[in-house]
């Protein structure tokens, strides 16, 4: 089959799966429903691999025209180049593993078929996002993943005790995304106005080849607006508070959407528009600062969280901040590399936490866990691998991807490098804290929960194992040229030669001596932190303090720097007040008054006219005579 056919098949498989599950799923047995969805995903992944192997140059697949007017034409068309196929591989690959995991995790859930429908639809929207050949398709997929995220976060909306909170979390995610989307939309309008087209290739031609002159303010405006969109989707300051709340959704949702795919949409957007961002150093600086701030603050907040998923959520925000720092420096391929490895180990960590939660009968507080390493060995080993990967343990994938970014930072600005290292250090601290508190020590939960602890079934452990393997060996994709001269930086070269604009980005050249030194520093830091946390939490059996005892920086960390409270005060309460006023004044007084007032007035005037009908023949005749007089006078005057 040709690449075009394969790509369309890749797009349609999840859509078909979602459609079948959505319409017939209620009547089918659960195994069938799950299998349909998972098989669709694996098939899509297999086809994506086929395309990946066959792809040499970028291909455009034109589906149909949406709008063709004089000034603007929008087409539903797909662009298959190295970046989009790489993202497709990540989405379908990690996605299919998560589908497999969900088959076991959600087995006891009543809305089983709905879950898989939403998951497949999400994948479909995400694929449109990454495979689109113009910003319109990207936006379409952008909105699609936003909707599916809303549906999936608030999946248990009818839960007795937490249903309302789930719904509110979903709403919060959607609204915050919407704010970002507004920025994205304005950015798209500006692009359309400035360049007259939304197609990636045409834009790249205009910017790179024809060197169409653009005013600095315009390009600054465009890129800032695009970045605002990315901020909403990829949870940067100030639009990040939805992501921790989104942990209210089932764990596979957190793994898929908030670790591996949706949150990387913002990164993808920036990488796709790299030539636009390269023209605007101001935006790149903004990206860098915001990413840095987010990375540091989120890592700080993660240090004293007690819900296993919340720690991972803040970790995601922090890693996304790191990615934006990388983008701000112009290190696009390094960012994609880290997106890939992050997808592996973050999905692994989330699924692992899902396995832990499942084993402990839905307990999520780490203060009630402990000593699980003997009881759920597979989960333990894979979780350990994930923790090591994210902390940058040498030779694991996370180490290489982070190192890539750190090298760029060191070349850019020494202060930036120091701050970045602080963020990475904090990452290691809270991740090891989490690991030790969950798997070491004595079990701190109830006896009843302890008796039910069991390892996850095969369909849940298999994805964990696969992801663990990927987390270990994923670094091979983009090895730095330290020990092997050939076959290194494969991903960077792959992307640079396949994606418009990336070959123009200045590569950072550091001498191997500097790279080695940086690596050594990072490794040392990680091992030191590992040792310190081991002593703190295992040898000294340190436990999280009770809520009342928190003081100082610990209190600030646990309270998430009061971001939610500030937002509530600044935005939510005034808007609520405004809508109440609106209801009282505009609706009740103005609109109601206008409508009923009109009715009353018409009635009153009718009453007035009614008085003319006396029922007396004589008066009728009188008026008739007057009418005749009037008519005759009129005609007399006229002629």
């Amino acid at each position, binding site marked *: 089959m040709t690449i075009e056919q394969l790509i369309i098949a890749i797009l349609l498989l999840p859509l078909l799966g979602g459609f079948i599950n959505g319409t017939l799923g209620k009547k089918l047995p659960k195994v069938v429903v799950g299998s349909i969805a998972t098989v669709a995903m694996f098939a899509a992944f297999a086809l994506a691999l086929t395309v990946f192997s066959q792809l040499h140059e970028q291909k455009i697949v034109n589906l149909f025209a949406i709008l063709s007017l004089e000034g603007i034409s929008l087409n539903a068309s797909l662009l298959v180049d190295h970046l989009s196929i790489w993202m497709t591989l990540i989405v379908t690959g990690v996605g299919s593993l998560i589908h497999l995991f969900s088959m076991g995790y959600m087995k006891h859930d009543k809305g089983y078929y709905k879950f898989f429908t939403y998951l497949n639809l999400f994948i479909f929207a995400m694929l449109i996002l990454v495979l689109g050949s113009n910003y319109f398709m990207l936006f379409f997929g952008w909105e699609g993943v936003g909707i599916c995220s809303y549906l999936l976060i608030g999946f248990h909306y009818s839960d007795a005790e937490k249903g309302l909170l789930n719904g509110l979390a979903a709403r919060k995610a959607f609204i915050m995304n919407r704010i970002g989307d507004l920025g994205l939309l304005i950015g798209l309008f500006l692009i359309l106005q400035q360049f007259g087209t939304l197609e990636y290739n045409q834009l790249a031609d205009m910017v790179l080849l024809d060197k169409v002159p653009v005013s600095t303010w315009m390009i600054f405006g465009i890129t800032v607006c695009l970045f605002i969109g990315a901020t909403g989707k990829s949870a940067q300051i100030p639009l990040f508070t939805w992501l921790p709340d989104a942990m209210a959704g089932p764990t596979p949702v957190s793994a898929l959407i908030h670790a591996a795919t949706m949150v990387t949409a913002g990164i993808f957007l920036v990488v796709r528009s790299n030539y636009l961002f390269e023209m605007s150093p101001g935006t790149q600086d903004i990206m860098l600062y915001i990413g840095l701030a987010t990375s540091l603050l989120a890592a700080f907040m993660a240090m004293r969280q007690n819900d296993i998923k919340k720690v991972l959520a803040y970790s995601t925000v922090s890693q996304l901040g790191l990615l934006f720092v990388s983008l701000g420096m112009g290190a696009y391929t390094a960012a994609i590399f880290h997106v890939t490895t992050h997808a592996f180990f973050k999905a692994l960590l989330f699924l692992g936490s899902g396995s832990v939660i499942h084993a402990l009968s839905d307990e999520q507080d780490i203060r009630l866990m402990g000593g699980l390493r003997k009881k759920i060995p597979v989960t333990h080993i894979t979780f350990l691998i994930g923790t090591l990967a994210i902390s940058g343990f040498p030779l694991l994938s996370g180490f290489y991807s982070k190192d890539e970014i750190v090298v760029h930072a060191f070349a850019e600005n020494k202060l930036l490098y120091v701050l970045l290292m602080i963020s990475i250090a904090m990452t290691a601290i809270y991740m090891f804290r989490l690991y030790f508190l969950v798997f070491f020590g004595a079990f701190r939960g109830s006896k009843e929960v302890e008796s039910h602890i069991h390892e996850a079934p095969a369909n849940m452990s298999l994805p964990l194992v696969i992801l663990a393997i990927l987390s270990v060996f994923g670094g091979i994709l983009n090895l730095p040229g330290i020990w092997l001269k050939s076959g290194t930086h494969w991903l960077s070269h792959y992307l640079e030669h396949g994606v418009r604009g990336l070959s123009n980005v200045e590569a950072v050249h550091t001498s191997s001596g500097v790279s080695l030194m940086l690596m050594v520093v990072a490794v040392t830091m990680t091992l030191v932190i590992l040792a310190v946390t081991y002593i703190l939490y295992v040898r000294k059996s340190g436990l999280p303090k009770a809520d009342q005892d928190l003081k100082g920086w610990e209190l600030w960390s646990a309270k998430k720097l009061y971001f939610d409270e500030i937002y509530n005060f600044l935005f939510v309460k005034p808007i609520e007040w405004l809508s109440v006023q609106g209801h009282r004044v505009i609706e009740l007084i103005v609109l109601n008054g206008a409508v009923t007032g009109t009715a009353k007035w018409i009635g009153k005037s009718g009453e007035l006219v009614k008085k003319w009908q006396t029922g007396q023949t*004589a*008066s009728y005749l*009188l008026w008739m*005579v*007057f009418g*005749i*007089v009037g008519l*005759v006078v009129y005609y*007399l005057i006229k002629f």
Partner: protein
Amino acid sequence: MSLEIIAIILGGLTIGSALLVILSKSPVNSVLFLILTFVMISSNYVLMNAQFLAIVNIIVYAGAIMVLFLFVLMLLNLNKENEPKSSLLMKFAAVLAGGSLLIVFVAALRDSVGGKLVETVQTVSTNDQGMVENLGHLLFTKYVLPFEVSSVLFISAMVGAILLAKREKQIID
């Protein structure tokens, strides 16, 4: 005496009796004065060489219709004291309406006639258009359809009148 003086006197008498119709208090008086008015109008017809019509007018109108009115009047047994009166406002408004209508009609007619009318009503006529033969000839050739249809009209009026005035079987009060 010229014809004109006679015509004017007759006209004045007609108007006078008509006025008395509407002004008299007793209904029976009104009916009698209306009969007088019809007689006057018939005299006008004679003046205009429409003798047949004059006779028919007297027979049909004064003879039949007015008698019918008188009959009903007597049947209802109305007399002067029970006569309803209209309010002063109504009288005033009615006179105003009537007066304005009169002025307007006269103005319209004067406008259309404009004093250009030279020819007068010929009474010295050599034609016999008012004679029965003439009328009959016209009636049965040119206007035969309305003639026949009017018979149908009469039947329907008769049927209607009888049906309407029939007494119900049950006792009503």
